[in-house]
Structures are given as structure tokens and as C-alpha cells.
């Protein structure tokens, strides 16, 4: 169950880093959640290709994950893993944008639907 535990810890840590430290505000934006929904849809396809039991590219040790496979045989842990990877990256992307002064902040801040154009 080590993968199970690690993937849950990763999600908790990433959320904690956002809420307690970086505070980019992405969780309050429609932009983030819509984008994340799209990402999950494509993750189902791509991860499914990697994990499908008919011709797997990645092989999972049954002792180290929950055994719960979804869609195209992807371990459910992969979706926690993916959430942590994508969300952390977007947080840091926002952080890097916000640090580049007020102009960049106005355009690239967490407002999501803010006055992004023109850039």
C-alpha cells in the first residue's frame, strides 16, 4: 500500500502548500477547475494507454496499490498522483507570474477571468 499512502500524502502536501504558503488562489478560480477537468479527461486516455492490462507499458505491483483500477485499468492512485503533479505545477506557474510585477500580476494572477489581454 505504499503507493496508496504516498499518493494521498502528495495531495495533502500540495493542498497545504497552496493554502498555507503560496496562496496563489487557484482553487477559487473557474479557470483552474475547468482546466483540471479537461486534464483529467485526457489523463484517462493517456494513463489508460500506459496502464491497460491488455498491453501495459507500466506494471503495478499489486501489493503496493489499492487494487482499485478505474477506466482503462489505471490505478486510482494515479489520479491523486496526477492531481499533485499538475496542481503543484500550476501553483508554481502562477507564483512565477505574480512575481513579475504588477503588470504581469494583473494579467496572469489568480483572477482567472481577469483582464488578461493583451499580452
Amino acid at each position, binding site marked *: 500500500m505504499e503507493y496508496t499512502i504516498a499518493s494521498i500524502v502528495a495531495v495533502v502536501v500540495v493542498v497545504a502548500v497552496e493554502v498555507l504558503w503560496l496562496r496563489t488562489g487557484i482553487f477559487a478560480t473557474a479557470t483552474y477547475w475547468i482546466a483540471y477537468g479537461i486534464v483529467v479527461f485526457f489523463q484517462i486516455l493517456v494513463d489508460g494507454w*500506459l496502464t491497460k492490462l491488455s498491453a501495459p*507499458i507500466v506494471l503495478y505491483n499489486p501489493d503496493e*496499490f489499492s487494487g482499485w483500477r478505474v477506466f482503462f485499468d489505471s490505478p486510482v492512485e494515479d489520479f491523486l498522483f*496526477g492531481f499533485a503533479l499538475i496542481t503543484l505545477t500550476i501553483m508554481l506557474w502562477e507564483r512565477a507570474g505574480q512575481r513579475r510585477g504588477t503588470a504581469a500580476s494583473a494579467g496572469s494572477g489568480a483572477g482567472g477571468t481577469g483582464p488578461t489581454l493583451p499580452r
Partner: protein
Amino acid sequence: MAEAPPIRPCERYPRCAPYTHSGPRYGDVSVDLDRFQYLLVMGACVAITLPLEFLFGARVWRRPRRLVAALAVPLAIFVVWDVIAIARDHWSFNPEYVTGWKLPLDLPVEEFVFFVVIPICGLLTFEAVRRVLAHHTR
């Protein structure tokens, strides 16, 4: 001393000979490409998301310093996670579908590529959604 018989073209290139063996042989395209399947999936991810940059104006590839700033830390963290997970046999890779090319610490090159490509796809999606929403709420 007998001379070695000349190699005929169909011995050198078995696929030109229309006959008898079954199963894959050297030179069969499918056999060669299978090893690149994981890398090709990653290449497809780059190709499919490229229009987000140029048609939706995502401006991710065109902000390379910000991109590196966003990718570096997750890349480091997830590579370490991956190396540990592989060493502890949480997961492994089907040798049929990976190149076998390894980075230090036994990290398949495909995994490194994954941790670069997939976050970029996420950022392109995020920026494209932002542009679309901004357009429709102006």
C-alpha cells in the same frame, strides 16, 4: 579456401522475401516502433497540445523562463518519488514498450520526459482556458 558466398539482398533484408517464417523479424517496423511506444505517447501529448499555444494563445512555450520556474521543482520531487518507487518495486516498465535507455539511478528516460511533458500539457490547458474565459467575460 572456399570463398564466402555472396549475401543476396533478401538475406540482408528479410522483409523483401515473400515467404515462410512467422512472427516478427529484424526489420519489421512494428517491432522497432514498439520499443518507442511510451516515448511516442509523450510525443503525441506534445503534438496534441501544441495548438493551445498557437491557436488559443496560451503563451506557455513562449515564456521559457517562467516555464522553467514552474517545472523545476515538481520535476525534482517527482523524479525522486519515481526513483524510490522503482527501487521499492511499486511499479516497473514493460521492456517491450520502452527503449531501455536509463538515466542515473535507473530512471527510464521515458519517465523523465513524462515529468516534463505532462506538466506542460497541464499549463497549456490552464492558460488556454484562461484565455477562453477572459474572451467570453470581457
